[in-house]
C-alpha cells in the first residue's frame, strides 16, 4: 500500500539536507491560461530559495511531474528580479477555455498541482 505523503512536513528548506522538501515550502504560485496552454508562475518564498528553484525545478522536471496531465511541451522562463520562474504547460487544458471539459478549464489550480513536487536535498 502506498504511504500517505504528509502535506506539510516533507522537510524544511533549512533543515536536514538529506530530507525531501515539498515545493510548497519553498514557493507559492499562481496560474492562468492562454488558449490550450496553462501558465504557472512559481515564486520563491524567500530570496535565498530562488537559486534552488532555478536548479531543481527545471522544464524537464516539471514535464515529468505533469506526465499524463499535459499533452505538449513545457517551457520555462526566469524572472530573477521577481525571484520567480514562469512555466508554460502546452496542451494542458483539453482544448482550453470554452472547449475544455475539465473542471479546471482555465488552469486556475495547476499552480497548486506544481507545488506538490518534492525536491531532493535542496541545500
Amino acid at each position, binding site marked *: *500500500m*502506498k504511504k*500517505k*505523503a504528509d*502535506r506539510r512536513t516533507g522537510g524544511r528548506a533549512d533543515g536536514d539536507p538529506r530530507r525531501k522538501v515539498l515545493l510548497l515550502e519553498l514557493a*507559492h*504560485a*499562481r*496560474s*492562468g*491560461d*492562454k*488558449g*490550450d496552454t496553462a*501558465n504557472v*508562475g512559481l*515564486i520563491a*518564498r524567500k530570496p535565498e530559495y530562488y537559486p534552488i528553484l532555478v536548479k531543481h525545478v527545471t522544464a524537464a522536471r516539471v514535464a515529468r*511531474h*505533469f506526465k*499524463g*496531465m499535459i499533452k505538449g511541451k513545457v517551457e520555462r*522562463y*526566469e*524572472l*530573477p*528580479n*521577481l*525571484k*520567480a520562474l*514562469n512555466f*508554460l504547460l502546452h496542451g494542458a487544458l*483539453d*482544448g*482550453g*477555455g*470554452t*472547449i475544455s*471539459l*475539465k*473542471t*479546471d478549464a482555465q488552469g486556475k*489550480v495547476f*499552480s*497548486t*498541482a506544481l507545488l*506538490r513536487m518534492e525536491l531532493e536535498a535542496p541545500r
Partner: protein
Amino acid sequence: MSRSASVRTVRIAAGQGFWGDWLEAPHRQVTGGPIEYLMMDYLSEVTMSIMQKQKSRDPALGYAKDFIPLMERILPTLVERRIKVTANAGGVNPQACARAIAETARRLGLGGKVKIGVVSGDDLLGRLDGLLARGHELRNLDTGRPLSDVRDRVLSANAYLGAGPVLQALAQGADIVITGRVTDTGLTLAPMMHAFGWQPDDWDRLAAGTVAGHTIECGAQCSGGNCLVDWDRIPDLANVGYPIVEALPDGTFDITKHPRTGGRITVAGVTEQLVYEMGNPAEYITPDCIADFTTIRLEQAGTDRVRVSGVRGRPATDKLKVSVAYFYGYKAVGTLVYAWPDAYRKAKAADRILRQRLLDLGLDFGEMLTEFVGADATHGPLALASTPPDDLPEVQLRIGVRSPDKAAVERFTREIAPLILNGPPSATGFAGGRPKPEEIVAYWPALIDKQLVEPCVELVDA
C-alpha cells in the same frame, strides 16, 4: 513612507476585473478616498461572443448591460468629484452602451455635465471577407491554419486596440470613455499618458503604464484576492479593497488601496498577479509597446503599498492581435455524487457502466472526459498518488462529452439520471436536473497589420 498625493500624482482605481465582478467595488472605489480615474475591465474572449449573440437578437444590445445600473449608482459622485472613467464595457456595441449612459445621466439631472467618449473600429466582422479576399489569411497563432477553415462558422472578430484611441477621447474632453475591444492594459495606460503627456514612442514609460494596467486589471487579485501566500492571514476579505495605481510622471508607481478596507498589498501578492497569464516575461506584447517584465523592481513602500519601478520597454510591433470567435460544436457535463462506503469505487463503476451504455447506443463522442471530484479533478494522478481515494466520504462523478452532433450530446444528458436507480448504490445530488447541451464557441487568435485597423473616436454629450 506613503508619499502625499500632489498634482503630479495620478490615481487610477480598478473597479471591475471581469464581467461579473463584485458590484460593490466601483462604488467603494469612488467613495472610499480620492482618485482621478476609475478603470473597469469587462472583456474576455468569451464575453465578446456572448455580446455578439445578444446583439444579433437585438441591435440595441451587445454590451455589458449591468454596467448601466452600476454607473447610475456612481454617476453623481463621478460628476461631483470629477472622476473620469475608462471601461471596455461597450463590447460589440459601444455606441448603444454610450447612449444608455447618456440617458441615465439625463434622468439623474446630470444632462450637460457628462461627456462620453466612444471608441470603436475594433469590430472586423463586417470586413472579414474583404480582408480574406485581399490575401490576409488571419492564420491561427497556435495551429497556423488559415481562417478560411472556419469562416462559415465565425460569430465575432475583433482587433485589440491599445491606449491610443482612449487617450484621444480623453484629450477631446471625455469624462467617460466607453470602448469595444480595447486591451485591459490600455485602459490604465491611457489616463497616465493623458495626465503626464507621455509620447507614443516613450517605450519605457508606456511599458510602465502597461505593467500598472496588468497589475490592476484583475481587480482584487493583486490586493489579497486569490492570493496563495499566507492566504489565511489576509485580513477582512469580506471588505476587500480593490487596487489603486498611484502613478508619477517618471513611470514609477505604487499599488495601494483605500484606507479602512480589507485585503493586503504586499510584494508577494503583487508578484502573484504579475505572473498571472504570463507568456514570455521579456516580451509582454500590447498594441502600445513591448513590456519587459524581467526589468520590474518591487519594493514594500509601506503598509498595503508596493512601489514598482525600473520597467523597460521596447517599440510596439506593427501588428494587432485579433480574436475571432467561431462555432465549434456542442458539449454537456453531467454529475452524480456517491457516498461512503466505497464512494470512489462506486463512481468509477458508474463511469464504466455509462460508457458501456453509450457504446451500446452507437454514440461515439469525439471527446469524453471523466473526473472524480473530491479525488482527482484538480490534481489528476498527482492527487491519487498522495491521497489514496479508497476511504473518501464522498465523490462526485463528473462526465463531459463534446461532439459536433447535438442529438448525440442530447442523448448523453438522458443517461445520467437513470444511474441513480439502475447503477451502483448511494448516488445523489441530481436535484439540478438533466444537464443541457451547450453550444461551444471557440477562439481563433490571429494577427493583423496595424494599418488595416482604424480606431474611431466619437464624443456624445449627455
